[in-house]
């Protein structure tokens, strides 16, 4: 029986009276890669931000490694955050610092690693994402795909137990996308990292997922391994994974018009 790493229990969140998360529940086991799929703007990123405690739920609970995020001291939260990394959609690299300073940020600030060891850790992380020797560049000099990979290097540099990916393959060319997918799989296989990947790129989802969960109208409406999801009979999931313009998702939109 695998242990639970992340438990999301009946979490609700509203912005301006618009319910983005509606009593959403989801469990993720230690070492598992869970892919959350759903349309753009359905609240997937909001869910991720709840897991790193950037946002607090209106109702419900989030447990990480047995600790309740809604009821935690700032000190505990900080040490918990050292175990969780998040890869942001646009990279979110600090543009006043070099690539190396970005990647080593967590180590410098919290583990007080300096000098040669720091450089080695930074270079190791950069090489893992296939970008050896670019430490002295500024983020502004990088292409979009490279920024994403540097962000990934920054996330793995602190050797986290959980990595959250916010659309890691959106906006990069298919080859880079595949190398990012491969990296997610490698991290999962070798380092036993627990991962949550938010995406609407189905190719990537099938490639990296142990389990796929579909989010719709603030809830998880379907869960299963990639095979089960592909064979689904749920009309909403069917429309989404096959990318059809006509179906139940767009019909509800029509009703609003």
């Amino acid at each position, binding site marked *: 029986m695998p242990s639970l790493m992340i438990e999301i229990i009946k979490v609700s969140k509203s912005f301006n009276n618009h319910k983005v998360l509606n009593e959403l529940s989801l469990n993720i086991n230690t070492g598992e890669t869970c892919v959350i799929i759903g349309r753009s703007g359905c609240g997937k990123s909001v869910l991720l*931000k709840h897991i*790193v405690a*950037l946002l607090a739920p209106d109702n419900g609970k989030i447990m990480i490694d047995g600790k309740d995020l809604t009821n935690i001291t700032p000190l505990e939260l*900080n*040490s918990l*955050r*050292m175990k*969780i*990394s*998040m890869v*942001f*959609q*646009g990279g*979110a*690299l*600090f*543009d006043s610092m070099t690539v190396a300073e970005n990647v080593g*940020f*967590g180590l410098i*600030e*919290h583990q007080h690693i300096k000098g040669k060891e720091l450089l080695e850790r930074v270079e190791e992380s950069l090489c893992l994402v296939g970008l050896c020797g670019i430490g002295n560049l500024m983020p502004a000099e990088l292409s979009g795909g490279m920024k994403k990979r540097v962000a990934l290097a*920054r996330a793995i540099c*602190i050797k986290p137990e959980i990595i959250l990916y916010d659309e890691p393959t959106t906006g990069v060319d298919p080859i880079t996308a595949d190398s990012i997918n491969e990296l997610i799989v490698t991290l999962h296989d070798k380092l036993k990292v627990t991962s949550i990947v938010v995406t609407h790129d189905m190719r990537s989802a099938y490639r990296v997922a142990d389990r796929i969960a579909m989010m719709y109208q603030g809830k998880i409406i379907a869960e299963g391994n990639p095979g089960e999801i592909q064979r689904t009979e749920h009309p909403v999931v069917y429309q989404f994974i096959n990318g059809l313009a006509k179906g139940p998702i767009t019909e509800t939109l029509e009703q609003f018009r």
Partner: protein
Amino acid sequence: MIRRFFVDIGRNVISFMYFLGGLTNLTFQTVYLSFTPPYNKDRVFEQSKKAGYDSLPIVSLVSLFIGFIFALQIAYFMQRIGSELYIASLVALALVRELGPVITALIVAGRVGASITAELGSMQVTEQIDALDTLGTNPIRYLVVPRFLALSLMVPLLTLYADLIGIFGSYLICVLKLGISSSLYLNITFEALLYKDLFTGMLKTVFFGMIIAIVSCYEAFNVEGGAEGVGRATTRSVVTTFIMIIAADCFFTALFYFIFP
């Protein structure tokens, strides 16, 4: 119609209360974090250089001109009543007590405050501030505290510098143009100035510096809606700081008037 009017008023009052609450909250957190370790001297130094040293040229230029203008404007009246000698004392008092502090604070608000809002606001919309949080670094400690300390230190120092340059400007006009002797001008200037003038003038600038730092950081953290939002926040930050500096100045002037009569 009437109902809508009251709804609008209510909404504005509520959002103003949120704004005040947010500012107060940020101020307390910043002050608390400023006095708890770990301290980061390097970042304070870096920000002091940006806010203080880099502002020297514009502060010099503006206060020199203010010195010229003030000497000439006062000379116009003083010549009519035949007491040119008092130009020196009037200029010194006006500059040290009022003009130096306010002009310096407004320059710094426009130059440094705007750049803080634009910089941190862009960091907010590109999720860099969230990224700081997820890397276990408190954005207030990392971004606001150094700017807060730097500004509350640099604005008084810049003010002192602006006072000197302004008096020098007026000195040039009086000595070279109006024929007052150099030693007489300096004597009258230092006779007119009391320690309390300098003290009250400098003390309020510490608060001006704090206002600039807190308001511009607060506006930056609350940016919504991409590049346009950053632009709007920057405008709002400068306008709000201007108003708050003038209001604070009014408050302090009244306060000092009664406690240091």
